[in-house]
C-alpha cells in the first residue's frame, strides 16, 4: 500500500501461477505412481545381466511414498497424468517464450559466480544479499533451469520406456531399455530433490512467495528476500518491521531524554 502503484503488479503472471500448481500436482502423482511401478521390479539389470547400482539394486521404495496401490493402478495414473504434465509444460514454456520471461532463466556468464555469492550470503560469509536483476536469485534461477531440463529428460526417457519398440530409436538413444529406466529414475531423483529443497526454502526464506504464487499479491519493497536481507530461517518479517522497531525505541529514548 505504501509503495508506488506501478510497483504493485503481480510478481507472477496468472499463467505462471496456474502452471506452477498444475505441475506441482502432476509431478507429485507422476513421482509417487512411478515409484509404485518401480517397485514391481526395483532394479535396473536386464535378466541375466548385472547393473552396478549397489547396494540399491533390488531395494524397493517404502510403500508410503507410492501412489496407485498396485502396478496396474499406478500405470493408469502414470499414463494419464503424463499428458497433463506435458500439456502443462508446453503452456508454461510457450508462455516463457511469448512473454520474454525465458530471459530470467537463460544461462549467462557469471551465473556460477552469482550462485557462489548467494551461497556465501546464506553461509554468513557476506553481509548483504547480492543485488538481483531478475525475480530469481542465481541459486533459484539455476535450480529452475535444471528442473526444466530434468523434466525434458524425464519425458524423453519416459517415451523410451513406454514404447521401446514403436519409438525404438529413442530407446537406442538412451542406451537401451535398462539404461532408459535408469535415466528416468535419475530425472525423478533430480526433480524430487530440487522440489523438496524448493519447498523448504519457500518456508525458510520467502514465505511471501506462497501468496505471490497463489493470489498474486506481492510487495517487492517490503517482502522480497533482497529487501529483507533474508537468510534461511531468519529475517522473515517485512523489510520495514526491523527499522520501525528501531524507530520506536529511538523515539522512546528521546522522550526519556526530554523528560529528564
Amino acid at each position: 500500500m505504501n509503495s508506488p502503484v506501478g510497483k504493485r503488479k503481480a510478481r507472477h503472471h496468472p499463467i505462471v501461477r496456474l502452471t506452477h500448481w498444475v505441475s506441482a500436482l502432476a509431478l507429485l502423482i507422476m513421482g509417487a505412481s512411478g515409484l509404485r511401478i518401480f517397485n514391481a521390479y526395483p532394479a535396473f539389470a536386464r535378466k541375466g545381466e548385472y547393473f552396478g547400482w549397489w547396494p540399491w539394486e533390488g531395494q524397493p521404495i517404502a510403500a508410503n511414498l507410492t501412489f496407485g496401490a498396485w502396478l496396474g493402478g499406478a500405470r493408469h495414473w502414470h499414463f494419464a497424468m503424463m499428458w497433463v504434465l506435458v500439456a502443462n509444460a508446453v503452456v508454461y514454456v510457450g508462455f516463457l517464450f511469448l512473454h520474454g520471461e525465458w530471459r530470467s532463466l537463460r544461462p549467462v556468464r557469471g551465473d556460477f559466480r552469482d550462485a557462489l555469492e548467494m551461497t556465501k550470503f546464506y553461509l554468513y560469509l557476506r553481509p548483504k544479499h547480492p543485488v538481483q536483476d531478475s525475480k530469481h536469485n542465481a541459486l533459484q534461477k539455476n535450480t529452475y533451469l535444471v528442473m526444466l531440463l530434468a523434466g525434458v529428460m524425464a519425458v524423453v526417457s519416459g517415451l523410451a520406456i513406454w514404447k521401446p519398440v514403436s519409438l525404438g530409436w529413442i530407446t537406442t538413444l538412451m542406451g537401451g531399455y535398462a539404461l532408459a529406466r535408469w535415466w528416468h529414475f535419475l530425472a525423478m531423483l533430480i526433480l524430487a530433490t530440487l522440489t523438496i529443497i524448493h519447498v523448504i526454502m519457500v518456508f525458510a526464506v520467502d514465505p511471501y512467495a506462497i501468496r505471490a504464487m497463489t493470489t498474486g499479491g506481492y510487495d517487492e519493497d517490503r517482502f522480497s528476500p533482497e529487501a529483507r536481507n533474508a537468510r534461511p530461517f531468519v529475517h522473515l518479517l517485512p523489510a520495514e518491521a526491523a527499522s520501525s522497531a528501531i524507530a520506536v525505541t529511538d523515539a522512546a529514548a528521546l522522550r526519556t531524554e526530554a523528560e529528564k
Partner: protein
Amino acid sequence: MTTPEKPLRLVRRAGDLMDRTVESLRSSGQMERRDFLRLGSLALGGALLSACNSQGPKWADGWLKTAEKQNEKVERWLLSHDKINRGAPGAMLAGDKFPSYFISPTVPLWDYNTGPWFLEIGGAVKKPVTVSLMDLMALKSRRQRVEHFCVEGWSAVEILTGALMTEVARRVEPTSDANYVDFVSFDKNYHESWDIESALHPQTIVAYAKEDVLLSPAYGAPARIHSPIKLGYKNTKYLTKIMFMPERNGGYWSDIGYEWYGGT
C-alpha cells in the same frame, strides 16, 4: 492386486469433519478468511498424505479410463510393421535367468492321455484349420533375437523361433471383419486378445523353440505366441487356440485391470 477402500473412506471422513469444523468456526465469526485458507491447506496436505499407497479417488476412474482409451489410439497410431526389435545388441541372453510364469498351481503340461496336442486356428476366417506341432514347424518361420518387455519393468533377451503369424493368417484367410485375435491357452482360463495389426506384425510368431531348443514346459511348451511389440502378459503361453474375431474379448490380465492394449 488389492482395492484399498478403507484408507479412502478415512480420508473422506477426515475431510468432512474438517469442512464442518471450519464452516462452524467461520459462521460464528471466530475465523478469518486467512485462517480458513491456512486450515484448508493443512487439510489438503493431510489428504495428500493419507492418499499414499492408495488407488486414488473413485471419481478419477472415469478420467483414467478415458486416458487409457486415448493412449490406445496413440499407441495404435505409433505401431508400425517397419519397427523391428533386434534384441538389445550387445546385451546378454537371459538363458535360464528368464523368469517363467503361469497361473496354474503347477507348470501346465499338455495331457497326452487326452490325445495329441493340436493348435486350433479359427473364428472369423474362411478356412479354419487344426494343426499339429509338425504342421506348425513346416510353416514359414522366423528365428529372431528379441528383447522381451515385462509390464513389471524388467526385460530379457532371447532367441525365439516360430511360425510367422502373417503366414498363419494367409493360410486361414481371415474375413474382412476380423479386427481382433484371441490367443487361448490350456493354462487354466488364460487368454489375451490382440488388435489384428499387432498380431500381423512381422515379428509376431507362434514360437516353438527358444535358443534353438524346443520350448520347455516352463516357457510355454508346446507353443506360445510371442512378439516384442506386446508386453509379456499379452504373449499367451501354452497355446491351444488362435481365434480371429470381429470384437475384442479382453484377457486374463486385461480383465484384472492392466491395459488391454499392452503394447511396446
